[in-house]
């Protein structure tokens, strides 16, 4: 047990290191901050809610720097795309927060907000699942025909529409190999930022699918570029929280120790898999986070009467972290086995990179 003086609680150090490591691994792999897992976990560990948010954002900023550096080395970051989008995202988050305050002032109930956020998350989950399943089938077909398949295959036609909008200025994203109007990227940033600010869900959840399905980036580039955005937005959030006294720096320190290893592993793991594998993990993460958040909210809305709901919410949050880490670890494990010509499940070859 460690005495966290600023937060005013005692908590086991290794729990924080482990949380940082698991969330770092998932975040480095699918390009999200992971606040949906960290904040509830910290509350379970006994941190006050405001302190949990502050520690979460500060740790995410630090972890994203580590993951971004690693993704840069892997060539997964398009700076032009990231910088064009970040301005729109910041503007969108501000708009989302103002919209939230307005809906509160006109008495829109929490239930309506919850339904909206659950609807968006489930919609994104379904679309990602269906599209990724199609892409996986296509890879299997091409492989059967003896054709070489690269590490990315997307069956969505939406990017073609957005890339065909020829509104000046046109930007050339050399790493992502995209030529697109800057306004499209900025508007996508505003739209995803508004949703993130309004519903209070992590931006990465929405931005990574948006970068893939609207802008037309490959999943690897979307993950790396989104992490770059999280460095900017997380850094700003960390400064705001630190100035407000919501950060216990020792808790952040222990979480970053774990995240340093987890984020690097998660980032490197992306080089073992094809784009659809990352999209699968992202969609699983989406649906599990939605179920966890839904259980927590039902528990809160029921005036904390039903203790079993709290139990399931906590178990789901912890179980989700374990599940995602195990899935990523097993993908890397099977990818290595596949490279050595050993037996792997039938669905693995279409999801992993051979060399």
């Amino acid at each position, binding site marked *: 047990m460690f005495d966290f003086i600023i937060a005013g609680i005692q908590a*086991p150090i290794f729990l924080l290191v482990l949380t940082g490591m698991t969330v770092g691994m998932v975040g480095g792999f699918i390009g999200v901050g992971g606040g949906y897992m960290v904040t509830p976990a910290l509350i*379970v*560990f*006994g941190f006050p809610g405001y302190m949990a948010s502050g520690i979460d954002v500060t740790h995410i900023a630090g972890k994203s720097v580590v993951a971004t550096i690693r993704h840069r080395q892997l060539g997964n970051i398009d700076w032009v795309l990231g910088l064009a989008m970040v301005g729109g995202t910041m503007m969108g988050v501000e708009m989302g927060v103002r919209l939230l305050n307005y809906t509160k002032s006109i008495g829109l109930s929490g239930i309506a907000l919850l339904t909206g956020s659950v609807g968006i998350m489930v919609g994104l989950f379904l679309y990602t699942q269906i599209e990724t399943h199609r892409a996986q089938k296509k890879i299997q077909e091409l492989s059967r025909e003896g054709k070489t398949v690269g590490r990315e295959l997307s069956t969505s036609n939406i990017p073609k529409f957005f890339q065909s909008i020829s509104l000046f200025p046109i930007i050339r994203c050399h790493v992502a190999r995209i030529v697109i109007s800057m306004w499209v990227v900025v508007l996508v940033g505003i739209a995803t930022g508004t949703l993130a600010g309004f519903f209070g869900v992590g931006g990465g959840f929405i931005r990574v699918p948006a970068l893939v399905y609207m802008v037309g980036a490959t999943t690897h580039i979307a993950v790396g570029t989104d992490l770059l955005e999280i460095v900017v937005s997380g850094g700003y959030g960390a400064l705001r929280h630190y100035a407000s006294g919501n950060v216990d720096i020792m808790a952040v320190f222990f979480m970053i120790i774990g995240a340093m290893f987890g984020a690097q592993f998660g980032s490197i793991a992306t080089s073992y898999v094809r784009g659809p594998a990352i999209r699968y993990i992202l969609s*699983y993460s989406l649906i599990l986070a939605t179920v966890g958040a839904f259980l927590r909210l039902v528990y809160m809305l029921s005036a904390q009467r039903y203790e079993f709901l709290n*139990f399931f919410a*906590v*178990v*789901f*949050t*912890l*179980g*989700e*972290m*374990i*599940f995602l880490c*195990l*899935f990523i670890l*097993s993908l890397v494990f099977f990818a290595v086995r596949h490279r050595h010509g050993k*037996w792997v*499940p*039938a*669905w693995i070859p279409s999801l992993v990179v051979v060399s």
Partner: protein
Amino acid sequence: MKSLLDSMAVYWCILLLFSLGAAGLVYVFWLKEALM
């Protein structure tokens, strides 16, 4: 066992049940006491 793992859905379910079970055990036998 190998043929069971050939289905991604079955693999997904096994892994999820294992994870939720592990999380439940961690909470019941350790986390709840440690956080009291």
